[in-house]
Structures are given as C-alpha cells and as structure tokens.
C-alpha cells in the first residue's frame, strides 16, 4: 500500500467546562490514501467538524487536542506552532466549508484573493499567479471567467460562490482538501454540479478529500471509503459498498435502514428509538447502547473495540453483518 497522505492516530479533542471535561472527539484513527475520498457521516454533534478542524489546526478555544497524533505526508503536524500551521493550511490542506462566505474576503475582488493565495504558497511571479487565477476560475466552470476576476463575492450566487471557494482551496495544489458540508446549503441541481466538480478535480490531480456530510446519497456517489461517527467515536470505517450494503455497526445498520428507499414503497420506515446523547451525559460503555437492539451487559460497561486506522472492525461487541474478507 502507498503511504497515506494523512494519518490520524488515536485523536482526542477535549473541551474543559465548569462541570466536566467533554470529549467531542474520542480516540479517532484513520488513514487517507493519495487521491482517495473519505466520506464522514454521522448526526449533528457527532464530532465530524471537530475532527476536521483538529486536522487543520483550527479548533476554537477552549477545545484542544488532548491526545493522539496527526501526520501529513510523513510529517507530524498536530504539534506545529500556529505560524507553521498557517503555512500548512492553504499550501498542503485546502478547505471548503458549508458557507462559502466564511472562506472569502467580502472586501476583495476574487481575482485578487486567488492571486494572493497562489503567491503566498507557490514560487511563481505575479504575472504567472494572475494567469493561474484565471485558469482556476475556468476550471471550476465560472462563465466568462476573465471578466469575473474583478467581481466581489456578493456578486455571485451561492452555487457560484462555492465554485470560487473550490478554486481557492485547490489553487495552491494541496495534497488534501477538507470539505465540511460543502453542498448542504445548496439546491439539488447545484449540489450535483459541485460534487461532480470536486470529484473530477481531485481525481485529475490526485488530491485526497475528507468529505463531511450528513447526506448518505452524496456519500454513495462520491466517497471511496466511509467513516461513521457517533458521539465522538468512530462507529465504523470501511469501503463505501461495505458500509452501505453490509453495515456492521448497529448504528450504521439503523441509519441505512431508516432511509426511505424507492423499493420499499409505503411500508413503515425502520426507526432507531431515541436520539444521540449529549456530550455531557454520555452513557457508560458503548454510547449507542441505550438505542441498540443488541445491547447487553458487556455493552453497558465497556465501549466497543476501538477501530484501527484501516477500520478492520466495527466498534461494536456484536457487529451486524459478517466481516467481508478482503
């Protein structure tokens, strides 16, 4: 196997509060291969964004990395100083967020923003940077790109803005892109455009992508592997066909089973009882046990086995499907 681009090892993020220390990310490990798209799913509050923000060194205080290691192309990055990390962001890791306006400076023309980013991270002349800025806009499908270089972010529609953000995230040719709900605010037809664009560009350049989304349809279409998060932990990690078609963790199984499917007609949907516990009141043992049809005494006492970086198992004492042998 080729060396992973990113390797997250036993990552723990903690938030000290007056009452207790919360763990929004608890012992999470995964690798991403070059050119791979890793989908991250899970309900609101599961820790998807926290994990991504920890990787790019953008945790909001008081949240901080309290354990584990993050390696990018063989270099450890979780212990870098803030100024060193700033260089890694943008150059080595591109970012795309749900709201494109968080990535764009409202006062700068987008041509200038692209040019500055390119100059900051790549050893090229200003003229070359200008040329590449135009290319970047053309590549993401902005019509009349040469004229739009002079436009401000607010002069674009939501979908067009997200294209600009993709251009910005990719213009310094990073090896990894973290896309956190990049299409959640967009309409179906625009979402399809953005996902297709992201897939194409990353494939052409061999860029790896962490794609955070709660949309299982988007995962099915875009991801190579899927990480399922529940209450700060990885519940399951595996190839997309395996996770969606033969889920092993009862949470994944419930999630997949509760989706209305065309084939099922008007039958009652399978439902998972209850809802995900809050961080401050996590149950002992496996955090899913109060909702789990298979839970027994073991589950109430011990959290399921931790997943290693390759996701060999589900974090569950009683996985649903048989292991698919590799």
């Amino acid at each position: 196997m080729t060396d992973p681009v990113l390797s997250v090892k036993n990552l723990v993020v903690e938030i000290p509060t007056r009452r207790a220390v919360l763990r929004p990310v608890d012992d999470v490990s995964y690798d991403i291969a070059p050119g791979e798209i890793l989908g991250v799913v899970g309900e609101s509050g599961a820790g998807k964004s926290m994990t991504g923000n920890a990787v790019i060194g953008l945790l909001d205080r008081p949240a901080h990395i309290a354990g584990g290691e993050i390696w990018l192309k063989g270099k450890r990055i979780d212990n870098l100083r803030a100024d060193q990390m700033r260089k890694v962001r943008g150059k080595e890791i591109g970012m795309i967020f749900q709201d494109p306006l968080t990535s764009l400076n409202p006062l700068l023309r987008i041509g200038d923003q692209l040019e500055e980013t390119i100059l900051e991270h790549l050893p090229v002349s200003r003229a070359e940077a200008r040329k590449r800025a135009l290319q970047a806009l053309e590549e993401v499908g902005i019509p009349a790109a040469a004229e739009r270089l002079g436009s401000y972010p607010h002069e674009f529609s939501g979908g067009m803005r997200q294209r600009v953000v993709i251009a910005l995230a990719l213009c310094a040719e990073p090896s990894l892109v973290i896309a956190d709900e990049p299409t959640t605010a967009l309409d179906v037809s625009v979402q399809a455009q953005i996902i297709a664009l992201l897939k194409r560009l990353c494939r052409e350049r061999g860029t790896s992508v962490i794609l955070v989304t709660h949309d299982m349809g988007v995962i099915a279409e875009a991801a190579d592997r899927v990480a399922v998060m529940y209450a700060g932990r990885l519940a399951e990690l595996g190839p997309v066909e395996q996770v969606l078609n033969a889920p092993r963790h009862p949470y994944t199984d419930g999630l997949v089973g509760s989706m209305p499917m065309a084939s099922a007609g008007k039958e009652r949907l399978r439902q998972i009882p209850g809802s995900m516990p809050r961080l401050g009141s996590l149950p002992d043992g496996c955090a899913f046990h109060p909702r789990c049809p298979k839970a027994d005494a073991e589950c109430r006492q011990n959290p399921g086995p931790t997943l290693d970086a390759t996701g060999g198992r589900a974090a569950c004492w009683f996985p649903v499907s048989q292991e698919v042998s590799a």
Partner: protein
Amino acid sequence: MSTLVSIRNLTRVFDVSKPWLNRVLENEPKRLLTAVSDVSFEVEENTVYALVGESGSGKSTIGKMLVGLLRPSEGEVEIRGVNLAAESDAKTVDQIRSDIQMIFQDPYASLNPRWRVGDIITEPVVARGGDATGLAAKLLEQVGLAAEDAQKFPHEFSGGQRQRIGVARALASNPKLIVCDEPTSALDVSVQAQVLNLMSDLKDDLGLTYLFISHDLTVVRHMADVIGVLYLGRLVEEADPDALFTTPKHPYTQMLLAAAPRMDQIGREVEPPKGEIPDPINPPTGCAFHPRCPLATDVCKQKRPELRYVGTTRVACHHAEG
C-alpha cells in the same frame, strides 16, 4: 373520495422594491417578484399531496396562503367548497381556520422557549375559548411522549421530540388538514424516520389530510399520494409517485431526478445539470425552464405552456409526450 382543498389560479406577488425615496432618487422602477404564478391543484380528503421544488420555487408561499398566513394576489383557496377570502359568515371562517394547522421546519424556532410544553400544545384551543382539560396529556401520548412532559420547557427536548411537540400542537384543535413545511429537514436521519412514521400513523388513525412540503425527493416518494413539482413559482408537473419517478414527463422533473443523489447508486457518475435557477424578478419568457431545457424550441420562448394531461400526469410543457 371527496375534494378537501381546491386551489385555483393562485398567484402571489411580492413588492421587493427599494424604499420609495431611494427609488425616486435613483430613478428605479418598482421591482415585483412573482413567488407563485397561476397554480391550480386539488387535494383529496385523507391523502398526502406533496409539493417539491428547489429553494425559492414557492412551496412555503403556497402553504402560507393555504393556512391564511398570506393573502393571495390572485386566485383562490377553497376548503370544502368555501372560499375563505370571500366567505362572510365569521363562524364558518373560524371553523375552517381551526380545521387547518401548520407544522414548521424548525423545531427550535417554532416553540416559545418560555412556555411550558403543555401550554404550547393547548394554545390553539385555549385561544378560541375551548376546553383544554386533559388535552395536553392525551396529545403528548398520542405523539409518543409522556403526559408528564407537559410540565417541561422546550429546551429539555431533542430536535425530534420538539418536532413531536409541534405535531401535538397542530393536532390540538382536531384539524382535518395539516400543512407540513419541511417537517423533517432540520432533523437527523436517524430521527427523521420516527417523525415520518408518526405522521403516517396519525393520518390513518385520525383521517388527516396533509399538504407535505419538502425538497427531499426520497422522503416525498415515501409519503405522497400525489406530487406537484414547482419551478419558479409554477406547477410544472403533477403525478402519483410511481408515475413521477419512473416516467417523469417534464424536462425539469427529469433533470431534478437525475441530479438527486441516491444511496443505492454507489459510485454513480452523473452528468450534472446545466445552469442555475433564473432570477425570479425577471423570469424567462414563455416556459420559465427554456434557457436550461434540452428540448426548447421557439414556441417555448414565446408561449407559457398550460398544464395538460399526458396519460394520468398533468404537465406544463410544449414538448412533453406520453
């Protein structure tokens, strides 16, 4: 089956001009936005009529006109043959108003945080001078919560539980019709199924009728008996779920279905749709979809297509065929 709701040539125009003085100073004309344009459809008793469409297509505006939160600019809403805007008998109007309730998308914003859940639920009944003894407890149990929850405040509940409270509140006045505006869009997938199942059960048990507004095609397919597809405020296609999903007739419906991500299509490569939804203030002439439509011809640019039957489907397209 009898018709419960009849919507005829419904149109709603919003004035989105700048303030009068700015307009005069900058010499700008009035800007009018047609959010809903000449929409007609009927909802049969004890069925689910779903409205789908992308953001800004007019779904919520239609829902609000139906429950009386917004006045139509043109056209009418008739409930059981009574036109609410024209009816002069206050008692009839009041009765019909209480027959229609609404459930909103955001289970956080739609419940008053300072009220106890019991008071929130019975408010529609109390406001009309009705007797609310024991009502909250009964309704809470009906939506799968506990009678004791009446004493609690909204922040003590999860999103899915809050949406159940919203459903209980809508049920309080014993309605016939509930307009559900994106009832599960703010909920997690694992909780969505609970709420959808609850809604289906209540419909069967209480003989309810739903106008179900959503942009999620898989949810709509599961819930609806009839689906209306909106584009730029116009009803472009109406069909039952099987017909709509297996043989969509309108080029926009076809585009929408092709673009929607599907869990059972692993690794699918889609040719993404072209273009974006046009500015609703200056919609295209003729068929509003013509700039993006692969079938468009001259007639599409000039003449707005009427809704017509092709098989059992109603479709507004010059070139749609059986």
